[in-house]
Structure formats: structure tokens, C-alpha cells
């Protein structure tokens, strides 16, 4: 059971879209924007509030790559692995980040909750390949060295 404030916030979000099945996706998006992930307890709560089964909500939430049930780090790094970025060597960038942060295909977030590393299929910035995003900021023409430098910078910023 989460703290009461989570449910109050969720009630407020549901209020924005109305208690109907069609509100599921925007409600989940807003919850994720608020907490940087989708707490399982809230998904169950939302399902009951808008009148769908928990299983249905889980189906929708897992269908979209964008929803995450794990708490994400302060810096969410999205390494593009779309075709253009891939052929321009995005994989070494990803591997350098994994190695530096002790992450892997299975483990996305550092234990200190500072960094989350994910891959995305296209950021729509193929001309800047290989591309990377940290939260809302886009970083073009990445190399493993530039990525590590950026991590160091972010660590200094705290």
C-alpha cells in the first residue's frame, strides 16, 4: 500500500479525464509523468476507479514500451537503436554506458536511483545519429567517450 498522497494525486488525475474506460492511457501517462514510473498499486486503483479489470489495465500498460513499472532514475537516458543510429554505431555507446553504470539488458536502473538506461527504436532525429536523450535533452552524434564524459558531468551536477 502506497502513501495516501499517491491516491489523492491519482484521484486528481482521474478527475481530469473522467471515470470512464477510455481515460486509461492519459491517466497512466500523467501518473508516470508525476512519479517517473507507474506504481502497480496505482494501476490496480485506476482500473477499479474507471471500471475495467486489473488484467485489462495490465494488458494496455505492458503493450506500450513507454510505461514502466519500475521506479526510474533521476536521469533517464534513452539510447536510440533505430536503423540509422544502429549503422552509425549506437551499440558501442550503449555498451559503454552499461559498463560504466553496471547495467545490462535486464537491469535498467542504477541502485542509487541516479541513472536509467533504455533503448528506443527511433527518436526521429536520424540526421544527428547516433542520438541519445537524457530526460528531455537531445545529444547528437554520440561516441562512447562523449557518453562517458556526459555521465561524469551529470554526476558532478548531482
Amino acid at each position, binding site marked *: 500500500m502506497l502513501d495516501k498522497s499517491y491516491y489523492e494525486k491519482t484521484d486528481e488525475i482521474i478527475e481530469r479525464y473522467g471515470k470512464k474506460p477510455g481515460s486509461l492511457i492519459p491517466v497512466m501517462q500523467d501518473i508516470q509523468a508525476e512519479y517517473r514510473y507507474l506504481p502497480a498499486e496505482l494501476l490496480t486503483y485506476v482500473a477499479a476507479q474507471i471500471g475495467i*479489470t486489473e488484467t485489462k489495465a495490465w494488458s494496455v500498460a505492458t503493450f506500450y514500451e513507454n510505461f514502466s513499472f519500475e521506479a526510474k532514475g533521476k536521469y533517464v537516458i534513452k539510447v536510440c537503436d533505430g536503423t540509422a543510429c544502429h549503422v552509425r554505431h549506437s551499440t558501442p555507446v550503449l555498451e559503454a554506458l552499461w559498463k560504466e553504470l553496471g547495467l545490462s539488458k535486464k537491469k535498467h536502473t542504477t541502485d542509487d536511483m541516479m541513472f536509467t538506461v533504455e533503448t528506443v527504436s527511433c527518436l526521429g532525429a536520424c540526421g544527428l545519429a547516433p542520438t541519445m536523450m537524457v530526460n528531455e535533452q537531445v545529444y547528437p552524434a554520440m561516441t562512447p567517450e562523449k557518453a562517458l564524459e556526459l555521465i561524469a558531468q551529470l554526476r558532478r551536477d548531482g
Partner: protein
Amino acid sequence: MGIITINGKRYEFTDEKNILTIIRKAGIEVPTLCYQPELSVFGACRLCTVEDDRGRCFASCSEEPRDGMVIYTHTERLRKHRKLIVELLLAAHCRDCTTCDKHGKCTLQKLAYQLGVNKVRFDDHREQRAVDFSSPALVRDPNKCILCGNCVRVCSEIQGIGVLGFAHRGTDATVTPAFDKAMIATDCVSCGQCRVVCPTGALTIRHNTTDVWQAIGDPDTRVVAQIAPAVRVAVGEAFGLPRGENSMGKIVAALHRMGFDEVFDTTYTADLTIMEESAEFLDRVGKGEKLPLLTSCCPAWVKFVENEYPEFKPNISTCRSPQQMFSAILKDYYRDEANAKGKKTFVVSVMPCTAKKMEAQRKESYTHGQKDTDIVLTTHELIRMIDAHGIDFETMPSEACDMPFGIGSGGGVIFGATGGVTEAVLRRLTEGHDSATLAAIAECGVRGPEGIREFTVPYQGIDVKICVASGLANARKVLESVKSGQKEYHFIEVMACPGGCVMGGGQPVGSTKAVCAEARTRGLYAADGDMAIKKSDENPLMDLFYNGFFKGKAHELLHNHE
């Protein structure tokens, strides 16, 4: 309305919703994995794809018929398509067929053979998933799931529960409860309808036959069986007997040969249920409290009320189900040294139902801290045990049940069909037992295939309003209408499985549901017709119960206690 040409022959159609129905009516078999007539059309498996005269291919399950259409069902192109579809499904499917419970009954296995898939060219690189053994009733093996969605739709559309759903997508897609929970941690009521529609071995019955063989093998154990009404009209079809034929005599004989010491008929406690539930009903009507009375025979329905409508819990009859009454009686009877004769007693209940396995484990199913029903076997497991014992069922002579619990009435037998409990109650409450009286009861609206039936019966100056429902989505509608005050009833009978216990989750699966339901229901009413005793209160064993060995124990043994 119109004419459609299939493989060069013209067929008339009227209001069929899709081409597949017309094709099947024409006696042509087109393979399907995801099509179930009573569920919404899903169009996932693509095996029913047909070709038209312009060479266009489309799934016949999701195509509306149009006048003048010309289609072909088995062209060379379609053969290739179907073969490849099945080959690809097999590539992502656990292929341990020899040890699978579905062996010989698996639609995927059958299609692979029919379509001549003799080699699978692709390797399975998927990660193996854990098999879920958490439910006492069902086993879920995600490695055998082909994502046809039948279980997902039956659970939400027919049962109105929606425990199972799709999760993730693409090659990661699975069918699973929310948050990958174990089945036991969900609102699953163990009805087993998912297992009925599963074309592969992804959802199967949790078997308990090993424990039964062990008990039979122990010379210090008395193994006693009780057989539910609906079992007798379903076993035969697995052994080539006409569908719906009552083979109770053969079942009793087979169980005796297998080594069961005593074989009884659950119909006996169905009669006791009627005695107790009728009394409880009259009492509540008299006091005007806790109405409508909700029947308590179906454990999946009871669980459903507990999960979703706890406010109706006091309305559920306090009567134990016939299974639990019988087991409590048997254990009590053999607790007496004179009857036990130095042996332990092991109670096996043979049921058309997977939820009974769950019921037997509930805390109310224990007396003096001892489990009343030791093992629940489904009809499917019984069939496998008969097979395993090398019994030629077809030529088995008939044997009668053992005494002192071997007699039941016609009212008890029809428990296996939707409306049966209500009809037996009405017989109990009605004076007289001549055929005209019984026929009038049968025709009052209590019988029929509809999912919700309402009717009114006059009784001692009041109009008793009755509702009979089967399928939990229908039950939900009924409870919602009562809750909102839109409807008012005195008595509500619910069976979780559409059609009642004859279509239970533990029954063998064959042909279409409509055909099975009709034949088995007819079989039960025929069995009722064959019996001299039609009314539960006229069962001679009732007097022995209330005034004999069990005198004064009715409340303790036959009711659930908070």
C-alpha cells in the same frame, strides 16, 4: 439472405453472421483454433482463411456473407498457408506431446497431423516460462500457449471475471493474469471454462489421480467414491457410447473393478440439499429476511459472490454443497468404530467440475479439523483412470450403487442441468407426485437453454419470484438488477458454467458446446424419467437419515458454520 457458392456448390444462407458458419453448415470442415461460436470473433489464427473467385484470401470467421459470393475452402494455396501457419505455431510451442494431458485431444496436434506438417524448420529460442501449479483446480503452462485468446474471451465475456488477459506484445506476448500473478492470487473462481476452450495443453485440469491409486493400493484404507449427477451423461462419449447416454451403471462397475470399496451416488445428498434448502427457504420467506435466497451448490458461484458481491453473502444458503454434505456424512459414518471396522476412510468425489477441487480445500469443508473430501476427481480424470485400468467400458455390465447411501431421486439427478435445483425444490414444495403435477412444474419456465430465466410460481398465497441463471456474466446481470432494485426475487439459482454442471469445466470436451449441452441435458432428464422416485422427500433414505444413524446431526453435517 442469399446464395453463396462454396467449392462449386450453391448454398442458401439467411442470417448467418459469418461465412465460416455457412461452410460448417454445409458439412465442410475448415480448421480453426481461435473460433468459438459463443464468443466474440477474434480472427487471430487465420486458419479458416478461404479464397474467392478473384483470388483474394480472407478469414471466413470474420467475413460477412454476401449474396453471389464464390469461395473455395481447400485450394493448393490455402493448403500451403495453413501448413505454414501451423508450422510457425509449433515452432513457438512446447512439443512434449507424449507427456501432455491434452495428448490426442489437442487441436494443434490434430491439425499438424491433418495438414501434413512433418518437420518444423524453425528453432524455438524463447525463454522457457514457469508452469503455474498454484491453483488447486487448473494448471497453466504458458509454454504451450498459442495466443488464440479463447480463455481470455471466455473469462471476460461468458464469466464476466476477466482474470486472464494478454500482456506485452510481438514475440513477447503472453496470456497471463495481471502483474503475472499466480492463479491462486487472482479472482479466479476455478470454473475451468478456460480449460474447456483451450485448444492446446496451456490450460489443463490439475490431476489428483496418483493420490487415489495410492489410497486404493493401501489395504488399511477404505476408498469410497461419490459420483455427481452430471458425470453419468458425459463419461460414455469418451468410450464411443452415444452422446448424453446415462452410463451410471457402467461407471459404478468400473469403479468397483478399479478397487473402490464403496461407490455412492451424490444424488443422495442432492436430495438432502433439497430438504434443507427448501426448509431454509420457507423459513426466510416466513420471516421475510435474507431474500432472495441464493443457491450454494456451485462453489465457483459462491466464490464469485464473495469476491465481487460480498453484500450478498448473507443471502447464500447455509447448506453445504451436495459434495460437501456427502463427504461430511461419510466421514461421520465411518468415524463410528462399528462401521469403520479398523480401516481409515478415504473419500473420493467424482465431479464434472474443477471448482469442486477448490471447494474441498476451503476451511468450511473440514469437520473436527479433518478434511471431509480427500480428493476431487473430474470426469476427465475418471476417464483417464478407466483407460489406465484397462477397462473395456463399452462392454461393462451395469452395477448399482452401494448401500446405505445408494439411492437418489429424479429431483436429485437433474441437479446437473441448469434449473435442476430449482425444479427439485418446486417438486418438494408441491403436493402430489402424479405425472400431470410434475409436467406442470417442468413447464413453468424452469427448464431451457437461456442464460437467464425468470418465472413466478404461486405458493400458499404468495407469488414466488424465481430466477435461474447460468454463466457468471449472466449472474452478474441478475445481481446488478437486484442491487439496483430493478428486480425482486425470492429465490435465485446460479450455476457458474453455461448450461449447468453438465457443461462443467471438468467434463470431457468434444463436438460443439451446443451439441454437448443438449445431449447431456436430455440424458439427465431421461435418467429422471427412468426413476420411480421423483421427489427428494420421497427418497426412502431421507427418513433413515433424519431418524436413523444421523438423527440430530443434520445441522452439524449439512450446513456451513461461520
